[in-house]
């Protein structure tokens, strides 16, 4: 229980970081960052075997993570920083000229923790599969994780990768789909037309686990089950709420790529407890 409470505290601070970062930047993507905050908190703080001190892009002897949905930079940056990959003060530089915290994650600026650039959707699953295959060749028992958006799964490359990963039995690959059912133009089930992606992954040969993406205990159990699966890759379909944690941002596509005003930011922050100290 102490673990769950601790993770909830981290998630609350991460949500504060997201709001403060995008407000200061004046642009960015708060909605999906908030919906995936619990997933990312659990993954980086209770699931992944990683060490910021010895981290390199080669992912040797560590788990690796690719943010396929690259627009979720704010949640990614907050998580990395709160895990010790770079100073928390650097979050203030998001999207500013010369920053390592580019509008979408990149490797060129040398921000620790980033394995590949992302933002052009649909590509992270392939890169993650490649790292996972490299690990298999090296007999490195570590896992590779990737976070997919649900709208992102409209990209054809996702399904090239899904078929490939199952065909090659890449069981050290675990994908999480942030299923908040929102994308820029509306609901994923309308814009793209798919209500649930689980059966499609299953048909490709994946192990599919569906979970409440805001239930910390359930997420912990889902990751534990995913790691046990042998012979096939696993996708965790995390049912989430867009903008989770800030009432006026919840359940709408309006906050996909829109930032709050100063006043709205204060309203949002009033709903999110400062648990680890603001940067």
């Amino acid at each position: 229980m102490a673990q769950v409470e601790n993770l909830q505290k981290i998630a609350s601070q991460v949500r504060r970081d997201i709001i403060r970062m995008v407000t200061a930047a004046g642009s960015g993507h708060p909605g999906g960052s908030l919906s995936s905050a619990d997933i990312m908190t659990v993954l980086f703080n209770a699931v992944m075997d990683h060490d910021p001190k010895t981290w390199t892009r080669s992912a040797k002897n560590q788990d690796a993570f690719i943010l396929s949905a690259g627009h979720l930079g704010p949640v990614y940056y907050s998580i990395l920083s709160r895990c010790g990959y770079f100073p928390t003060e650097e979050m203030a530089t998001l999207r500013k000229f010369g920053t390592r915290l580019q509008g979408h994650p990149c490797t060129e600026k040398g921000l620790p923790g980033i394995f590949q650039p992302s933002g052009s959707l649909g590509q992270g699953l392939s890169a993650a599969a490649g790292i996972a295959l490299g690990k298999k060749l090296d007999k490195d028992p570590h896992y590779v994780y990737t976070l997919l958006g649900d709208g992102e799964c409209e990209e054809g490359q996702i399904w090239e990768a899904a078929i490939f990963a199952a065909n090659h039995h890449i069981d050290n690959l675990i994908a999480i789909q942030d299923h908040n059912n929102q994308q820029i133009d509306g609901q994923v089930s309308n814009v793209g037309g798919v209500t649930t992606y689980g059966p499609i992954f299953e048909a490709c040969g994946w192990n599919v686990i569906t979970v409440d993406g805001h239930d910390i205990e359930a997420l912990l159990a889902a990751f534990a089950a995913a790691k046990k699966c042998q012979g096939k890759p696993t996708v965790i379909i995390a049912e989430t709420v867009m903008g989770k944690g800030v009432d006026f941002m919840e359940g709408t596509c309006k906050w996909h790529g829109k930032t709050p005003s100063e006043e709205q930011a204060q309203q949002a922050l009033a709903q999110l407890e400062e648990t680890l100290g603001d940067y």
Partner: protein
Amino acid sequence: MKYTDTGKKDTRGGFGAGLYEAAVKNPNVVGLTADLTGSLKMEKFVEAYPERFYQCGIGEANMIGVAAGMALTGKIPFAGSFAEFVTGRVYDQIRQEVAYGNTNVKIASSHAGITLGEDGATHQTMEDIALMRALPNMVVINPCDFNQTKAATIAAAEYVGPVYLRFGRPGVPNFTPEDQKFEIGKAIVMEEGKDVSIICTGHLVWESLKAADILAEEGIKAEVIDIATIKPLDTEAILASVKKCGCVVVAEEHNNAGGLGEAVCGVLATTAPAPVELVNGGDGFGQSGAPAELLKAYGLDAEHVAAAARKAIARK
């Protein structure tokens, strides 16, 4: 001509031979293909190292991403398909995962250019050099025969960083030394001359050498320079030759926009302007036909290179 055609061989065969040799030398070399193992002559590698071969099925976009991921773990992936499908179809994947990510991926691009032949314009890319040249961090290599392609493949494996390696389908004269060392970024002076610099790449190197023979009979001494590496371009070698000859022909099996011709013109215009004549596919698509027939029809054979040289000399 001082070169002897030791027998027609395809440049993709040079890739297959080079891949195998690179794999023998370095256990990190891995191969990926999108359902074209035989077309890229990868069989010897696959038989020798099945555990280092990844069949991607007909999914080129995924193949590029997988290659980038494998490169992060220290592998040296050669990802192969037809030139059109491993450039135009996956330009964004290459841009993000390979060029911007600066991953050690080797893009093995076969059946490039119009000499792909009978399959027609859907498969005959004449734009790939332009696409790949445009990408920061990308090295672009376009060797001229079997032996050079083999050497270039081995050099690509040794070089750390993204490489676009372009080769072709038809059997063509094999005339460069068997055990040559390929130096990335170095132009090769094939014939020395003083009247015109013929700057050429890929299959048109042989056509240019034949053109030099035709010109020699007219008393014209053409200098033939093989630009096996299009990016980074050996500007020093080009400028030295142009200083000596005073006019230039650039010959390539590629369209005008973004090709070697434009690259050379860019160098000359900003440093040492000289008359230039371009031998290339212009601005259009190809069609079905036999390779030699197409080279002639599209103005890319030795006769056309020689005619361009006469024009360039007349403009001096």
